[in-house]
């Protein structure tokens, strides 16, 4: 078997195992169990982290606007799926809100309850993604020409402007102003999250390994050379930006699903920083790294380290020190250590199948040694 065939088989085996494990866990535990919650949240973060890696890691565009696109996706999902009957109470200050339909209910009427609801929910997620993509297209026109530092702050600025808009009471009939959106449907099983995110991540992986993905990497490594070799910088940067934002939007919608409520306030720069740091931990330029780091981070933050917030951790009883917030401090310190001392992150720029075979770098030592 050739190396690439071996790698594909290995990858497929891993994916099947993961799926089987997810189904098993879903069957064994109730949906409110902490493990299920962690898997769901980790999956959502994995999708968003991969989308950010596509932009920052593979194309070299240092954008800090992720939270803004997630915000768009989250609101699109909530607004389009709240059952009509519930809208009066949710939009209580805005007379039930301007939108008086819900996608799941529309599809339920002719596709039946389960299929219809699912189709409606998926469509709402899709709309969220498209909305984010549209915003990315609009923003991208002026912003992508900027140098890396300026691009970072421009995208940060746009995300903050979006957030301000979504808290504006004048838009209340749609967004519910500064009030929460709630009562919308969610997927019960973690497996649904995994399949959904998995398909999207698979698409991103396929894209990265295609000729366009290689063009993105060329832009990252040396954009002057890329341009000289016929790659239109503006078009490809915009492409990466739009695709990344599309998936960030869907990720936002899935986050809304997971959280059960939507407000604009949490979608601030701190959320983008969190995702960025996850990408760094996993390894900028490694999809596997982003996925692993997301699960690791969520697992640690939500479960492993929860003792640090409630007085008892690892057999040490110190309620004075281990109070609310200590968990995040410890995590932040660990992240700083990785940023400073393990800059390549968990996986560097390698992917899972690479752990199997030898990569060109290994042979480099042989050639140099001759």
């Amino acid at each position: 078997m050739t190396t690439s065939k071996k790698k594909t088989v290995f990858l497929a085996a891993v994916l099947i195992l993961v799926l089987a494990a997810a189904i098993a866990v879903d069957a064994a535990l109730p949906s409110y169990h902490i493990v299920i919650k962690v898997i769901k949240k980790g999956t959502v973060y994995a999708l968003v982290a991969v989308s950010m890696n596509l932009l920052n890691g593979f194309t070299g565009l240092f954008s800090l606007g992720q939270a803004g696109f997630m915000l768009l996706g989250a609101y699109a999902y909530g607004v389009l799926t709240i059952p009509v009957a519930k809208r009066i109470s949710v939009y209580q200050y805005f007379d039930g809100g301007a939108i008086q339909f819900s996608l799941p209910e529309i599809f339920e009427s002719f596709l039946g309850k389960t299929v219809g609801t699912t189709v409606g929910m998926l469509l709402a997620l899709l709309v969220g993604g498209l909305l984010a993509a549209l915003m990315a297209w609009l923003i991208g026109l002026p912003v992508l020409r900027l140098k890396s530092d300026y691009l970072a702050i421009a995208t940060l600025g746009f995300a903050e402007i979006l957030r301000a808009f979504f808290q504006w009471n004048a838009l209340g009939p749609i967004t519910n102003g500064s009030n929460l959106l709630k009562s919308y449907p969610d997927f019960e099983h973690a497996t649904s999250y995994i399949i959904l995110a998995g398909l999207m991540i698979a698409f991103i992986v396929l894209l990265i390994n295609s000729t366009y993905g290689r063009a993105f990497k060329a832009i990252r490594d040396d954009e002057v050379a890329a341009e000289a070799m016929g790659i239109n910088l503006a078009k490809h940067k915009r492409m990466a930006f739009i695709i990344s934002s599309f998936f960030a939007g869907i990720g936002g919608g899935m986050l809304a699903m997971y959280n059960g409520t939507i407000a604009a306030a949490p979608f601030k720069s701190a959320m983008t920083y969190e995702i960025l740091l996850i990408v760094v931990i996993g390894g900028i330029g490694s999809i596997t790294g982003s996925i692993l780091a997301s699960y690791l981070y969520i697992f640690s933050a939500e479960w492993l380290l929860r003792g640090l917030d409630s007085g008892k951790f690892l057999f040490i009883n110190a309620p004075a020190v281990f109070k609310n917030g200590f968990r995040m401090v410890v995590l932040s310190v660990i992240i700083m250590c990785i940023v400073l001392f393990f800059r390549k992150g968990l996986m560097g720029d390698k992917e899972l199948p690479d752990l199997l075979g030898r990569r060109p770098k290994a042979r480099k030592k042989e050639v140099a040694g001759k």
Partner: protein
Amino acid sequence: MQQILPYIINGISVGGQYALIAIGYTLVYGILRLINFAHGDVFMVAGLVMVYATTAMPIYAAIPLVLVVTVALGFVIERAAYKPLRTAPRMSVMISAIGVSYLIQNLAFYVTGGVPQPVTNPIPWISENVEILGASTKRVTLVTPALTIVLVIALVYLINHTKIGMAMRAAAKDFETAQLMGIKINAVISMTFVIGSFLAAVGAMLYFTNYPSVAITSGGMPGLKAFVAAVFGGIGSIPGAVVGAFIIGLCEELIKGVGYTTFSDAFTFALLIVVLCVKPTGLFGEKVTDKV
């Protein structure tokens, strides 16, 4: 005129506070080409320390303590988080700055329990009310612009007429050559952070005298706005940062005066976008051409 006068006065005052923070950003960017994302959080920490210090000790000890702690914080951040990455690609240092910002915010949350800390003992004299041109305001509103101008003049003198200032200018022009010419680059960089943090501490003490409490998120907005001011004025240029800050402070207050309070924040970011698209180098910035 009488209507908007308080807003103009406020605007100049807030502008001065932003200027003190903005200088920190612009100094660091000028030499290290680094956007010090953690600077706004240093400002917030200065506010927190002020709250604690003013309740725990007399004012003539509290103010120096705030200054010392903030300067120490800035110095330590540079040594621990930026110096090790000086040879790393630019993105790595920016990520480190983001990491520091994240850490400081989480630490502050842990220490304060997420509760905004009330300013129980505001600094006397500047927090007293005074009458100016028919409007009533705190004395700090008048002190701020004056103090800002004094400090900026002192800083400009330092940069243009002292040896360390010349070293800073050289490092800002060409980092590597400055090193090769024997300039103690570590001292220069530390000095930059010391100055920036000192000014941020002063700015914090002035800023939070106007507010009833200091929250974790308090550093976020002023920090970001000061940063926009620095970019608007031309990042790397001190007069630019000051001018930009005053303009932003004024516009912000005037927008509030006209009634669109929710958008005073968004205005600043819209300004940022416009500046970056039209003239990224800002009002007083330099143009740099890349050699192919």
